[in-house]
């Protein structure tokens, strides 16, 4: 598949935008006004963007605690997301959920919850409903390598395989669950893609930091799923830049070796893609600067919106217990 120049730009733009938003969240976090846990996506943007660029608005995604990139890549409202982090009534969940419960039904962001693995069956259920209702929409379920240890992950694969559900399972393998390296949690002889296959689900490994590769490969897979409902699983190795939860870098804790960090820092999906686009004369320094300014302006506006929004009213506490 050949990627058009405009798509390339779009891929870059989306990644850069998410990165800048996350960086702004990180820097503004110390104002102590976004008072909820945040799990930033910095370093993992290529996966969110590469996949979501292949989705239609009415396609759906579900995600977990580290959801900002997915939410934004799928078209979730930035203003509502920031307002949510500030706990405001204009937030996507009216401040009730915080960073760990992003939702934007208009954009097809169905669910994000911080209980590891718990949206995997929920996404599977959405796909099941789509299959029953003969909709040609698909669901993408994003989760981490840690989530593939939960029983409900396997149970969901089993069901999706049995009913040939139109769902793409996306495992973002950043090799860590909080501070625990995957080798402490999973046998070296284990493989997530092989597990999927043993359930009767086609699967593939991908480089989680190569945006074009992700884009083209998932483009094909998503087409296949839409043509003939069936589950797929992909595993993408990637790297989280900052601490597990919070706005800081925690490399001084040494739970990831210097070598490991160096290796991965070289693989930054955005820097590398910028270089690549530059080298191939697809974007100029000026282009980038312009994009930057557009994004900066949008972010500025969104933060201002979030900050000036009001907190939700007390009466909502009771109102939202039952529909």
């Amino acid at each position: 598949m050949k990627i058009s120049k405009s798509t390339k730009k779009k891929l870059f733009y989306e990644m850069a935008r998410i990165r800048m938003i996350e960086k702004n969240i990180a820097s503004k976090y110390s104002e102590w006004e976004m008072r909820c846990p945040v799990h930033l996506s910095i370093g993992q943007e290529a996966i969110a963007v590469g996949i979501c660029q292949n989705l239609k608005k009415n396609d759906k995604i579900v995600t977990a605690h580290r959801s900002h990139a997915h939410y934004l890549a799928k078209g979730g409202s930035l203003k509502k997301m920031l307002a949510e982090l500030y706990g405001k009534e204009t937030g996507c969940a009216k401040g009730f959920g915080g960073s760990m419960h992003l939702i934007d039904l208009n954009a097809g962001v169905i669910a994000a919850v911080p209980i590891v693995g718990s949206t995997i069956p929920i996404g599977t259920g959405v796909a099941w409903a789509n299959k029953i209702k003969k909709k040609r929409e698909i669901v993408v379920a994003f989760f981490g390598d840690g989530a593939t240890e939960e029983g409900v992950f396997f149970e969901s694969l089993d069901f999706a395989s049995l009913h040939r559900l139109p769902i793409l399972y996306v495992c973002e393998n950043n090799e860590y669950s909080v501070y625990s390296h995957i080798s402490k949690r999973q046998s070296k002889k284990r493989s997530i893609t092989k597990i999927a296959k043993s359930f009767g689900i086609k699967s593939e490994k991908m480089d989680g930091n190569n945006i074009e590769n992700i884009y083209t490969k998932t483009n094909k897979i998503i087409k296949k799923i839409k043509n003939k409902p069936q589950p797929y699983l992909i595993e993408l190795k990637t790297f989280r830049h900052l601490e597990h939860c919070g706005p800081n870098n925690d490399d001084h804790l040494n739970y990831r070796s210097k070598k490991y960090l160096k290796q991965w820092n070289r693989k930054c999906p955005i820097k590398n893609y910028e270089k690549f686009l530059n080298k191939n004369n697809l974007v100029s320094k000026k282009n980038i600067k312009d994009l930057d300014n557009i994004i900066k302006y949008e972010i500025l506006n969104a933060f201002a919106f979030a900050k000036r929004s009001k907190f939700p009213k007390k009466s909502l506490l009771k109102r939202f217990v039952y529909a």
Partner: protein
Amino acid sequence: MLRKKKKISLADSIKEALILSMKKNKNVLLIGLGVDDPKGIFGTTKGIDKLFKDKRVFDFPTAENAMTGISIGASLMGVKPVIVHQRVEFSLLSLEQIINQAAKWFFMNGGTKSVPLVIRLIIGRGWGQGPQHSQSLETIFAHIPGLKVISLSTPYNAKGLLISSIEDKNPVIIFEHRWLHEIQGIVPKKYYKVPLGKARIVKKGTDLTLVSSSYMVIECLRSAKILKNYSINTEVVDIQSLRPLDIKTIINSIKKTQKAIIVDNGGISYGISSEIIAKLYEYFSSKNKNFNKITRIGPPDNPIPSTRELAKYCYPNYLDIIQNVEKLLKKKFKNLDKYRNDVPSDQPNRNFMGPF
């Protein structure tokens, strides 16, 4: 659905509620292990799979947690899943999805979307079911804001409550006692609702209130019948809705009778009766009313063993209730023994031979 009899069993009334709901709303699906098998969940779903052209009845792998999450996901897309577990205990595998997700979905997403979902839990009892097949555990669910928790007791209310639950926009947990499935009662053929959130006066009376739910309502009614012979006119209240709890109906009854026994269907400590007594206390003490004459009984603080010789001590029956009435009224009823029957303690009645 062309039945002649006015009286049907509670199992049949559930089936009727399911069929009518499925006819009315094509999004209603039945989900659970064995829903389409030859026994059809003690008859409550038997044959339903054959009534609908589209596939609407889904047997499921033994994967209760995913089953619940998948149903939540489907319900977000407009499907109305009615899940059933043949034993309450199996649902423990899915409590994360029920408590963290379903119960809080509407709230934590700021009112954007709720999870309309019905989960039927069948309480086992008798025939040596033992510690892992006879718990009711109502409290676990009743403690959770965002859930509605219902407990069935008669064919009439079973049908109406189930229909209401399926129409409800929230996750509803329904407790269904295995020993009630064969109970007969008059049930209108039509689609009708019994509102959630309301207790129900099963039998009116003036001298004493018995408050209970589920199978214990039957025991209370038996007691009431016998008490009549001792000139005690008993009022029997079926709690019906454990969450939200309709304490008003209970209070009004006790205001009239001045005396009450709460008969708990599940373990007594931290049980349903605890909250009722606490609420009654709060009410009556705030009114400076006398409310000395309330007691409670229920299963003791141990798991339920398999052997019938000990399991029988774990369930209060109508005679135990009457003995508590004696204490409460400081009376002694003569010849109570003649009301003792010889039904084995581990069967609901002589004719009932399972499946349990």
